[in-house]
């Protein structure tokens, strides 16, 4: 059956699409040339593959303002990295501080370990602009608090938190700050050292422009993450103890070499385009979208009223329509792809009063144009006309 001739993709907060051709080409070329197991064999190809992986670690280390590239850990995605970090840090009886804006990648872990009687946790809320007050974090920290975990930029409303101020609070109380940069990496300059971030979790397939299936953690020298996964690392093979040194400490089995290659090339694309330039362009389009949608009486816009410290994400609803149906009409009748529902962040929607139905999220990416935005506004105008 025929599909729409042209897709207007406005679901870039889920994954940036399409990826730059040079990322895909680099992956193909590299994998065909030396797609062997990095960090294992001593033959030249394996050493070249290892060197390439190390180059990407070093690149990421500098990109995130950290100081030890061996503490750049590859994982499947940000959720996977957050599992490594949280489960490698919690101890029986400890307390965790996090926020209502978190993704289920954090919430479900905290809920699970609280239910199992291992930890307790508290969540700080957010204000009308989607901002977390660092003082609320200070008030929530207890003597048993093991870590503060904060979503740097919301995948629901795009708010970018003041990581520097939150980091200052964590420094003052001597509690490690863990930052989830799944949405912000590639759109916001991140400086772990300056902000006092002890560990961050990133994904490669969003604004770092890499493929699916690659992400990771960057761990500062002020903390250690306990080993929670065991297996082959390519070193210390004579020992039945898992390798205690980074990065092998937290990586097991053969790396996603193809993903690492794509991530490295994506990172190069991001740096060439310029983080600020990309975000400014995307936010300008989001403002255009907001202006257009705000003139449609049936459309209700949720979240911050400002675009300062915010990614190009806009969450809306039509009060008497199911969000999934709005998304289906946009897709089926107009060829516009958006994300509907709760966006894996149910408590953020609670705070926005959009729970349980959620909303319709438009998220702008590097390939979007003003024509895309005008088409989306026109479509929403028609959808909202009789509502």
């Amino acid at each position, binding site marked *: 059956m025929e599909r729409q001739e042209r897709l207007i993709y406005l679901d870039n907060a889920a994954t940036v699409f399409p990826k730059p051709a040079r990322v895909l080409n680099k992956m193909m070329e590299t994998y065909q040339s030396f797609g062997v197991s990095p960090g294992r064999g001593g033959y030249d190809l394996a050493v070249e593959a290892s060197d390439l992986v190390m180059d990407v670690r070093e690149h990421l280390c500098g990109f995130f303002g950290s100081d030890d590239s061996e503490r750049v850990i590859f994982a499947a995605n940000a959720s996977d990295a957050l599992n490594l970090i949280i489960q490698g840090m919690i101890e029986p009886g400890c307390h965790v501080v996090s926020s209502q804006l978190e993704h289920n990648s954090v919430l479900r872990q905290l809920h699970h370990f*609280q239910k199992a009687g291992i930890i307790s946790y508290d969540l700080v809320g957010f204000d009308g602009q989607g901002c977390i007050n660092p003082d609320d974090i200070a008030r929530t920290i207890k003597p048993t608090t093991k870590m503060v975990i904060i979503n740097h930029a919301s995948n629901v409303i795009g708010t970018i938190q003041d990581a520097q101020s939150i980091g200052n609070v964590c420094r003052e109380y001597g509690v490690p700050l863990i930052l989830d940069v799944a949405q912000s990496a590639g759109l916001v300059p991140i400086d772990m050292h300056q902000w006092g971030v002890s560990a961050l979790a990133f994904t490669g397939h969003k604004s770092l422009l890499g493929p699916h299936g690659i992400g990771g953690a960057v761990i500062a020298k002020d903390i250690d993450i306990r080993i929670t996964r065991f297996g082959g690392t390519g070193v210390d093979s004579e020992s039945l103890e898992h390798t205690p040194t980074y990065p092998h400490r937290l990586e097991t089995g053969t790396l996603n070499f193809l993903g690492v290659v794509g991530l490295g090339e994506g990172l190069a694309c991001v740096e060439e385009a310029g983080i600020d330039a990309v975000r400014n362009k995307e936010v300008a389009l989001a403002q255009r979208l907001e202006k257009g949608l705000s003139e449609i009486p049936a459309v209700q816009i949720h979240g911050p009223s400002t675009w300062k410290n915010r990614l190009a994400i806009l969450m809306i609803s039509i009060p008497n329509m199911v969000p*999934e149906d709005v998304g*289906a*009409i946009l897709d*089926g009748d107009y060829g516009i792809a958006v994300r509907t*529902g709760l966006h894996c962040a149910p408590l953020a929607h*609670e705070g926005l009063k959009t729970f349980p139905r959620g909303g319709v999220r438009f998220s702008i990416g590097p390939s979007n144009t003003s024509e895309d935005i005008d088409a989306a506004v026109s479509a929403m105008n028609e959808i909202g006309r009789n509502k």
Partner: protein
Amino acid sequence: MNAPEGKTIKAPYTRNIGGVNILFNGEGFFINPSQWTDDVFEVLAHEAGVAEISDEQRMAVHFIRKFYDEQGKAPLNHHLKVGTNMSIAQLEVLFPGGIKYGLRRLGGLPDPKGCRKAVGWNVKRD
């Protein structure tokens, strides 16, 4: 805000319609789509506010049923358009509850799985 205490799952329930015990999930979707019949559709549609099922409503429901029976999955949006010769917007107003809670639910398709409410957080408040 204190930590959520846990999730409360809307429990599935059984209803007897026309002498048959039919299992629904918490949102009223068929758990076993093979239990759907035209007679059950009539009952559910009337309960949803449809006084008399129109030819278009019946055609749309029969299309999604046939598609599901043949393909083992719900039709995508472009299948719906071509198969019903209607726009998605027209389908949305065809039933009370729109596409998801109208057409799809009354047509006896399973609850679509997506990033939306399947369960509710039981949030403990300050």
